């Protein structure tokens, strides 16, 4: 918080440190997109900049929302998003072989993106309503499973495996923090680890091959493993200091597929090296840490769960993308927020940050006694 006579009070009360980090990440992202386009602000950097500024403004505006307002829109937001998800199935716009988009005149909406904060808000609201004594009862579990399962299935059949996993992980995180018994989480993990070998043996050849390709991408460098192999080459060849701005051969010669979207981190690493990568990872860690602190300082259960849930959303975004780019996870199509080109991820992240800023503001303004 900045205190100065010159700066107006409302501005001074904004969490400037967070905004500075986010601005830093986004600016770095624009620099990378500029390079990915071969040294041009077209077609990506300029669009991305406009989208980012717009959503940053929205996030800052959201920071004045009251906790009670947020609480009251939790269920309606979830309901509307769910309706839109169903709508996508019926009226969806097919792009890249999947129905994800809803065409609403001038704007094209991807409802599954809204579902990430929406599921967090809904489950936080739900667990706020569940009395503490009930938390270990079945009554506290099945509604949450339903609230989470229905949108997850709707997203999975679009099909959008990446977003589906994200929504599931965000929801499960909130349930975990809400204090559900361990077995709820342990049982599925145990079931999966027992079933995996059996399922694997029953799989079709091509399905097995996909899994094997993930486990050892070098075995099929021209086929399905191509993305991962080229991404690793880009990161590995960058070395400690990188090849220099605008000198990444992997991205500029188009060996790196999706170098401006999902694999933007590889584009960045090739030119900025390990140093650039570590700085970016630390910047994201700072943002997430800021969100977790908001959760720890929150005084209401809803605020606690919401802040932790949306922080986890950002965490999952970043970590799934990076694990995938570095060849530690299968390619599922999760962008790197604020850096990858594309409005949806920016929107989701900014909604999350807006919620966090709103909750943080409550902590500072509402008296402890109230």
């Amino acid at each position: 918080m900045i205190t100065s006579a010159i700066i107006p009070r409302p501005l001074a009360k904004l969490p400037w440190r967070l905004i500075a980090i986010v601005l830093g990440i986004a600016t770095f992202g624009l620099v990378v997109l500029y390079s990915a386009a071969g040294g041009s602000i077209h077609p990506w950097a300029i669009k991305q900049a406009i989208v980012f500024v717009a959503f940053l403004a929205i996030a800052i505006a959201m920071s004045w929302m009251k906790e009670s307002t947020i609480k009251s829109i939790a269920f309606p937001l979830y309901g509307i998003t769910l309706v839109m998800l169903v709508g996508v199935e019926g009226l969806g716009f097919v792009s890249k072989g999947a129905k994800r988009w809803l065409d609403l005149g001038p704007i094209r909406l991807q409802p599954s993106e809204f579902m990430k904060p929406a599921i967090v808000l809904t489950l936080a609201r739900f667990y706020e309503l569940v009395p503490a004594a009930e938390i270990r009862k079945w009554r506290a579990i099945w509604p949450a499973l339903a609230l989470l399962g229905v949108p997850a299935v709707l997203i999975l059949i679009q099909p959008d495996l990446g977003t589906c996993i994200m929504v599931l992980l965000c929801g499960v995180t909130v349930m975990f923090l809400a204090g559900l018994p361990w077995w709820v989480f342990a049982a599925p993990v145990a079931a999966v680890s027992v079933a995996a070998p059996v399922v694997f043996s029953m799989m079709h050849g091509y399905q097995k091959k996909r899994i094997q390709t993930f486990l050892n991408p070098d075995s099929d460098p021209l086929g399905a493993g191509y993305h991962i192999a080229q991404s690793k080459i880009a990161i590995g060849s960058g070395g400690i200091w990188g090849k220099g701005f605008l000198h990444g051969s992997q991205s500029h010669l188009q060996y790196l597929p999706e170098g401006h979207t999902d694999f933007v981190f590889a584009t960045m690493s090739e030119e900025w090296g390990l140093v650039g990568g570590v700085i970016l990872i630390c910047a994201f860690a700072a943002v997430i840490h800021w969100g977790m602190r908001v959760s720890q300082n929150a005084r209401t259960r809803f605020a606690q769960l919401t802040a932790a849930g949306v922080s986890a959303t950002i965490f999952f975004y970043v970590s799934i993308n990076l694990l995938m780019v570095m060849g530690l996870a299968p390619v599922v199509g999760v962008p790197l927020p604020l850096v990858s080109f594309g409005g949806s991820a920016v929107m989701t992240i900014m909604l999350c940050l807006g919620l966090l800023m709103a909750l943080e503001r409550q902590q500072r303004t509402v008296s402890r006694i109230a």
Partner: protein
Amino acid sequence: MKHMRITTAHQSITFSRRMMLLGGAQAAVGGLLIGRMGWLAIAQNEKYNLLSESNRVQLIPVPPRRGWIIDRNGKPIAINKASFRVDLIPQQIVNGPSVIAELQQLMNLPPDEVERITRELAASRGFQPVSVADNVPYEQYAAITVRLPELPGVAASRGFTRFYPGGSTVGQLVGYVGPASVIEYEKENKNPLLLIPGVKIGKEGLEKALEQTLRGEPGGQRVEVTARGKLVKELDPKPDRSGGTVQLTIDSDLHQYAARRIGDQSSSVVVLDVTNGDILAMPSMPSFNPNDFSDGISQNEWKMLSGDDHVPLVDKALESLYPSGSTIKPSMAMALLNAGIDRKQIVVCNGAFQLGNHTFHCDKRHGPLDMDGAVVHSCDVYFYTMCLRVGAEKLSPMVRSMGFGEKFDLPFDNQRFGTIPDPDWMMRKYHRKWQGYDTVNMSIGQGMVLINPMQLATMASRLATGKRVVPRLLKNKPVGPQTQLAVDEDHLNFIRTAMWGVVDHGTAAAAKLPLDGIQMAGKTGTAQTHNLSAGERGNYTASQWKLRDHSLFMAFVPFDNPRYAAATIVEHGGFGAAVAAPLIRDTITFLYDKRKAMAALEAFEASIGGPPDVRMARKTAAWRQANGLPPLPAKTA
């Protein structure tokens, strides 16, 4: 109420604990990511840098021009001719049969060729281009270039074709070139050069043996290309280096003369310079035309060549083995003298020789002969008698030192060196004791004795010089030290005079050189190819070509100051003096008087039906007709 409070407190403890767990997990994932990135960017940086560079920089190879092969005077034996060519790239072909049909129509491809292309296309492995035609006339090249967009998979390009001015006369010498096979490609660790259409490598003969010298270093344009193959920028090119020129000791004119003089016989001639062992000529005829082979021959051509009983696919100078017949006699005489036999001692020839219960025959009844007479008139009985007296142990070493059975370091793959037997060898190889009849057989170059024409010419040059002359084909190879042979100079002079006698008034008297002041010394030979019964002996013109004797002759000139040695073995040529000796006579005449020699050749060729190309074409036409094939279209050069 109390119960509720406790649970709320409990819940908040759970929350804090689980938040710590979550935070810890997040920190762990962050650590994992940074660790992984460090591993990729530091530990494996070198590996990924290499991969990144091999992505970035591609080499468009520029095939090097193949080195020339030239003769001792710089005349071309194998050179390159600028040409147009058309290839098929199997990977890019959309509809194979229709493309081939289109090409057949555009280029007038004969059915043979269409069949070959179809076959090679089916057997090809995607990356390997299939040659449609080399040496495409400009009009056809232009017609195809115009239509390239409609013919996916067809590549028309300018290149070089190997050209052998000597045609089939140098076939066995140079071998031929052709596109690399899958096996050759894999043997060279998948050298990408071998995949470029038009790049040919040596398949046989010198082209194969000298491949590394002739090929040169491929250069290439180093380019930066995108993943989709779009050229971004050209980097500094890697220059190519043409293959090295190889100079042979061959005298191209003499070589071709000898090849033509062989005529329709199945034979090889070797001419050596006795002062240094230079091989001046070594044609083996009939042969294949390496120009046809370099274009890729059809199955029918191959069938015709491999079915020919004159074995055009074998280099008879080095790969074929024959009994030496009487040409062994001068060396045998040297051995006898060395063993102390008096050359004046007389042996009476009654036309036959009895050993145990077996009778060995002679050519005719020579009557009483000394050694000189025995060599000049090639009397077998004299050698049977004397060699038995001396024993095989003293004969074989002398014959070997004269070059028979010796291995020569010449740049050919399939040389065979034959045998000069002796008692030890007999025991090792056949596990039996050496018998008197083995000595008798060996004394006249029959039985186990096997030689090749190169060895025969070497023997002539060693008898001529008394030095260990070693044949040499590559001009840049140092001349081996010509050590003195362990023989008596007086013995040598005697033998040289006897060999002069062979040509002057002996078995080869009909082969005197038509030159003033230059006299030839030589020795004829007639080698049995199968066990003829006594009655058939001397039937040199048996109705069946295959049953006739081989005709041999070796010689050196001038007899009093030797400069050249020559030898020939004419397969199934009959009596040595009748066929082999005149062949050598004319060849040697060419060395001294080209005009006279050419006149003799023209008269000779007129008697057998024209120059080799004409006879070859006639032979091909006859073969095609006999095998029910349509005649070949007239060639337009």
